[in-house]
């Protein structure tokens, strides 16, 4: 088959000693960049990009992709150990990763995250290899109506699922949506909700700021309160038995993992979405499909595995529209696109035909980068876990500093640091009142996308709201959303003892 011949040629490039060295260097650097709150793959790629002129384009892109991949793995590390998302894509990993670490299972959580990332990365690279060209057409078929339907699907998975109070979930989603409208209106350019005339609100509220505030600062406040007398030091030892146990645990989750990989790849492929929404959607859907949804948010292994699979799969997926359509699916791929322009390559439908050496060299390097990333990551886990053994009083201060750095670094505005402090206090209080935080973050991530696609569709269809259901793809998504929305209700009917007496009432 022509495909495999191309791939074999590609491996001839990516397996050369220099390129292997570059991959290992890249993933290791990426791992640390990703683990640092406030620094993500974007920063890593941006810093290294100018240095890549000296090596040939194929080696340069291999280095950049290795950093990209490494950072995707690294993001989970601080999410789990410190409860601060190391990168925006790892926001969902904090939901269950942090509770696992508090229960003394940090090592297991890290192993799960690494192996799940590997599975997600590998499945998506295989999908990429086999279907890159035809899938570009799927990305094209996604218009505003389809984007809206997909976002709606993400929301419905979060409403009314086991464990969380339905009303509180809806309140948090509404709050998140309201926060997402802060800033300049995408369509008319009018300023909206500029609180106290602060210029900082013109650029909107970044969900990373919210997540760092709630999960970083809020978490510390909560921990300080609950462990006043006996600061908990996580017992951290890691042996090969633990590793083996972790891999076995992950193995049990094959359903979650394969689902997360497909979902992540697909969502990542859509130019408007990307790895963060993909991870959140995967988390929601795996909770929906889980037999024990009530364990989510309290340290469920699946809750770590599903977003980590999806964000790695999505990072590969977002390379697809960049290469085949010339449209980057994420900020990092936009930088890679810039790099390609620099090397004289024209991304777009003709790239696969005109530059097969480059394309297949890149694809094959994704396989090696993925393998290198999981090995380096697993090898370094004992080091990361060891960091947790420091006394809580010390750790607490470090985490606070990292929160501030992580909030300040991307925008370089004190405004965001104050917001983090504010969100931290509000988050702490809301948590005490038992409000779920994940739907809030989800709503802030997806809100702008949802609003934009909803309004675009209505403008294009002359205000005809039926258009969402008429189009085959978006109609299907909306139908699935409705089912998901009703599913917990049906489960409730089944479980409730009264259900047998009045079977029809709740189904109404």
């Amino acid at each position: 088959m022509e495909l495999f011949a191309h791939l074999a040629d590609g491996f001839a490039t990516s397996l050369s000693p220099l390129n292997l060295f570059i991959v290992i260097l890249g993933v290791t650097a990426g791992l640390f960049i990703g683990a640092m709150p406030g620094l993500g793959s974007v920063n890593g790629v941006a810093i290294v990009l100018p240095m890549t002129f000296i090596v040939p384009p194929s080696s340069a892109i291999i280095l950049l992709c290795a950093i990209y991949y490494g950072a995707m793995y690294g993001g989970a590390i601080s999410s789990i150990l410190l409860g601060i998302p190391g990168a925006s894509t790892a926001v969902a990993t904090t939901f269950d990763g942090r509770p696992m670490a508090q229960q003394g299972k940090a090592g297991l959580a890290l192993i799960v995250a690494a192996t799940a990332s590997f599975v997600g990365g590998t499945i998506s690279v295989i999908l990429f290899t086999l279907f890159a060209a035809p899938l570009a057409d799927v990305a094209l078929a996604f218009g505003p109506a389809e984007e809206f339907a997909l976002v709606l699907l993400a929301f419905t998975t979060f409403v009314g699922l086991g464990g969380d109070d339905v009303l509180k979930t809806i309140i948090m989603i509404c709050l998140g949506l309201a926060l997402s409208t802060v800033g300049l209106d995408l369509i008319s350019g009018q300023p909206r909700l500029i609180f106290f005339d602060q210029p900082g609100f013109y650029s909107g509220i970044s969900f990373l700021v919210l997540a760092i505030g709630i999960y970083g600062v809020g978490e510390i406040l909560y921990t300080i309160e609950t462990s006043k007398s006996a600061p908990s030091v996580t017992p951290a030892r890691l042996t090969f038995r633990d590793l083996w146990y972790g891999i076995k645990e992950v193995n049990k989750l094959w359903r979650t993992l394969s689902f997360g990989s497909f979902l992540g790849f697909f969502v990542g492929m859509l130019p408007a979405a990307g790895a963060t929404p993909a991870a959140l959607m995967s988390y929601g859907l795996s909770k929906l499909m889980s037999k024990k949804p009530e364990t989510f948010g309290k340290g469920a292994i699946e809750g770590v595995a599903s977003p980590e699979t999806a964000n790695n799969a999505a990072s590969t997926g977002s390379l697809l529209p960049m290469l085949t359509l010339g449209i980057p699916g994420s900020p990092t791929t936009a930088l890679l696109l810039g790099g390609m322009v620099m090397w004289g390559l024209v991304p777009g439908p003709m790239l696969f035909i005109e530059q097969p050496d480059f394309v297949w060299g890149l694809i094959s390097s994704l396989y090696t980068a993925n393998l290198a990333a999981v090995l380096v990551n697993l090898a370094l886990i004992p080091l990361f876990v060891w960091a947790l053994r420091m006394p809580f009083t010390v750790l607490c201060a470090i985490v606070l500093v990292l929160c501030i750095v992580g909030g300040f670094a991307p925008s370089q505005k004190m405004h965001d640091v104050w917001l983090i402090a504010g969100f931290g206090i509000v988050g702490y209080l809301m948590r005490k009142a038992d409000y779920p935080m994940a739907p809030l973050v989800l709503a802030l991530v997806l809100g702008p996308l949802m609003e934009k696609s909803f309004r675009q569709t209505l403008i294009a269809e002359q205000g005809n709201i039926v258009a969402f259901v008429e189009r085959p793809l978006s109609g299907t998504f909306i139908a699935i959303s409705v089912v998901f929305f009703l599913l917990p209700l049906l489960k409730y009917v089944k479980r409730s003892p009264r259900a047998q007496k009045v079977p029809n009432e709740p189904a109404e």
Partner: protein
Amino acid sequence: MNNRFTRRIALAFAASAALMTAAPAMAGDWKPQKPVEMVIMAGQGGGADRLARLFQSIIQKENLASMPILPVNKGGGSGAEALRYLKDKEGDNHTIMATLNSYYTTPLRTDIGVDIEEFTPIARMALDTFVLWVNADSDIQTLDDYVAAVKAAGGEWKMGGTGTGQEDSLVTAMLEKEFDIKVTYVPFKGGGDVAKNLVGGHIDSTVNNPSEQLGFYNAGKSRPIAAFTPERLAAFPDTPTMTELGHPLVYDMQRSFVAPKGMDPAAVAYYTAMFEKLNASEEWQTYTAEKSLAPDFLTGEALQAYFVEERAKHDALLGAMSEGS
């Protein structure tokens, strides 16, 4: 083979080390002390974005700056996000902004507290052109076909663009007035997004810049109908201009760089010299020829005068547009 690679790597490190210790001598005595942020007034993948990234890459490759240039997209609200951002950077010597025509249209349309005359002009690099595009699957071959099809759609014809008040919406308004047609204008986040939605069949036509559609055009997925230029474009020799079809519609878009208010004059001189060298580079000259851009270099006071004049022109255009609807 490997030997050469390792040597290149060694060179790479040597070069980057050299960058840190000794910056190349440039005009004046000022030079950037940290990476320079290049704000882009548009989303990723559009014409403005691609061009800004090309500038960045040429600057890095030819070593025109002693510090890396980092492009940052701030495309929200038709560039309002970027304008506000630049305003907040008053006195900053390490921020420059790549502009397009929304540089004057956005503050005219919405009061965002920005006066562009306060900003420091650096250099105008080029004038970009507009072409009317349809999906290659459509039956439309000529401008007459196009006008007939839009009329038949009765106002439901979907024209994609990057936001009301943006260049493409002005071109759309010109089309509507000239041919007495009515279209539904659907805003997207950037020119690349618009191009993708045309090829995906979600909108019926666009007035993209040539560079935004070139990839799809080469793959046979989109079709140029007519160009809004005085002369035919070298890249599309078979595409007539609006003017030669009897409709004198010409519109172009400036691609310039500006800096925040109160930038140190020495820094202004540094960036001006940098763009002068960029303008003279072979890559840039080849690119403009291939992508149908007119390199039209302008700096300093002359550029500021040009901005003010264009702003007045657009004020009139926008006024006519709001009267029309």
